[in-house]
């Protein structure tokens, strides 16, 4: 991530594109600029030099290019604002796009449940974080309702240890902000664990490569539908697809975008998101065949 001023900032963008990198996200707030970018590892020195020349900072983002859903049993005072927003903010600082979701009937021990629609909304994202409370018994009882989710997930709760693979303890229900060092360490531990499970998913995608990279498709879409200045997150990158905030009448145009020798509609499953915009799930190359022949 580049953090700095707008001075000569286009030069950095051009350099990244010349080197074969991508701009994942761009945010210009008056004179402050935040740029999430992806570029080949061997060009890091060149980029660093450019950033130094512009007087900005270059920060490593382990979660860039992912969308994370943070799920809590409810949006009541018991769970929001703390620690829900602390978790969300920390993940955003690490490069993720975050959504917060409160379940309709997620509270309690025996009575907790996840509806089918909620499950489908969660599965639109790359990973899910469940924020739960302080009782070991309640969390253990809820483990089986979390199991149905088909995307990687992490459970964040109070008790320090729990017999569950995807669990980070020590956060739980709180009444104040997480601002002390040991609390930041906890958030860091959570991010590391989330990074690990996302890496597993990335590896799976690498083993069965996609027809085209989401970053590449993003650039092609932007050529057809240029982003409106000031619009927030028109395109969100997932590990194996994209989320597009487009109008309904633009959908056929998106389908007809040419990717190599194929149409975007042929290499992607395009569905309307239950939550926001359209979802593009890029099919593996093994299914579509190469886009270049």
């Amino acid at each position, binding site marked *: 991530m580049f953090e700095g001023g707008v001075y000569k900032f286009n030069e950095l963008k051009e350099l990244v594109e010349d080197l074969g990198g991508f701009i994942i996200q761009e945010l210009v707030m008056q004179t402050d600029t935040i740029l999430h970018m992806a570029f080949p590892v061997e060009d890091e020195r060149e980029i660093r030099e450019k950033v130094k020349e512009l007087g900005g900072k270059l920060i490593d983002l382990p979660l860039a290019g992912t969308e994370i859903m943070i799920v809590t*049993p*409810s949006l*009541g*005072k*018991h*769970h929001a604002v703390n620690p829900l927003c602390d978790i969300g903010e920390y993940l955003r600082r690490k490069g993720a796009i975050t959504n917060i979701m409160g379940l309709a009937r997620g*509270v*309690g*021990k*025996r*009575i*907790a449940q996840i509806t089918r629609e909620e499950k489908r909304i969660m599965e639109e994202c790359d990973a899910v974080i469940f924020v739960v*409370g*302080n*009782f*070991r*018994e*309640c969390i253990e009882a809820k483990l089986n309702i979390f199991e149905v989710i088909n995307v990687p997930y992490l459970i964040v709760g*109070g*008790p*320090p240890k729990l017999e569950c693979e995807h669990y980070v303890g020590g956060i*739980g*229900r709180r*009444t*104040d902000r997480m601002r002390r060092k040991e609390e930041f360490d906890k958030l860091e531990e959570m991010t590391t664990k989330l990074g690990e499970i996302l890496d597993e998913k990335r590896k799976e995608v690498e083993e069965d490569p996609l027809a085209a990279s989401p970053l590449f498709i993003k650039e092609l879409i932007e050529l057809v539908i240029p982003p409106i200045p000031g619009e927030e997150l028109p395109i969100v990158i997932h590990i194996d697809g994209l989320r597009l905030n487009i109008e309904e009448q633009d959908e056929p145009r998106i389908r007809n975008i040419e990717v190599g020798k194929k149409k975007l509609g042929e290499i992607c499953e395009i569905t309307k998101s239950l939550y926001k915009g359209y979802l593009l799930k890029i099919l593996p190359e093994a299914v579509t065949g190469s886009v270049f022949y």
Partner: protein
Amino acid sequence: MEVTVEVEGADEFATTSYAKICQDTFRDLGVRTSIDHTYLYINPQEHLFLISVKIGRVASPIKVRDVTQPEIDKLKITDEKYAPKLLAVLWDAYGERVQQVGRLEIGLKLTDKETEAVKELIVYDPREDLIARILDGIDRILPEGARVRYPIPSPERITIIASENPIGEEWKTRAADMLRSIETNV
């Protein structure tokens, strides 16, 4: 305020965190000084919770002179938090003779006698909504899933048992016993 948290069948983490939640919640609602003792019983295995709050001294009412500074034909608001209540009280008492001239200024057209009397008007009495605030606090402390509630009446305390399951007679009598033992010990 003294807080006792007793946990049956849960670990130490739940005990310490809930003691903190009790303290912080009551402090946020501004009722901490009015509570003498809080007892919290937690049984996550059977999903049963009991909270009992003993009400102590209540802060004295806030008068007009506590939140304003008198000037000639004017009152200057020193604590803006009470401004809406202050205006409502003054308008009730003197009607159109009271005007808000600026953000922190209230213009008065009163006789000398009334100007003295106005300082003693009560703006806000914490006694009014104390019970409502304590109940709000209890609602925030008890886990959200525990929606089945049963109050146990006693003269000095507010006691509520809560669970996600129907509360049986056995627990009601057990809770009453617990309440008696707290009352004798505290």
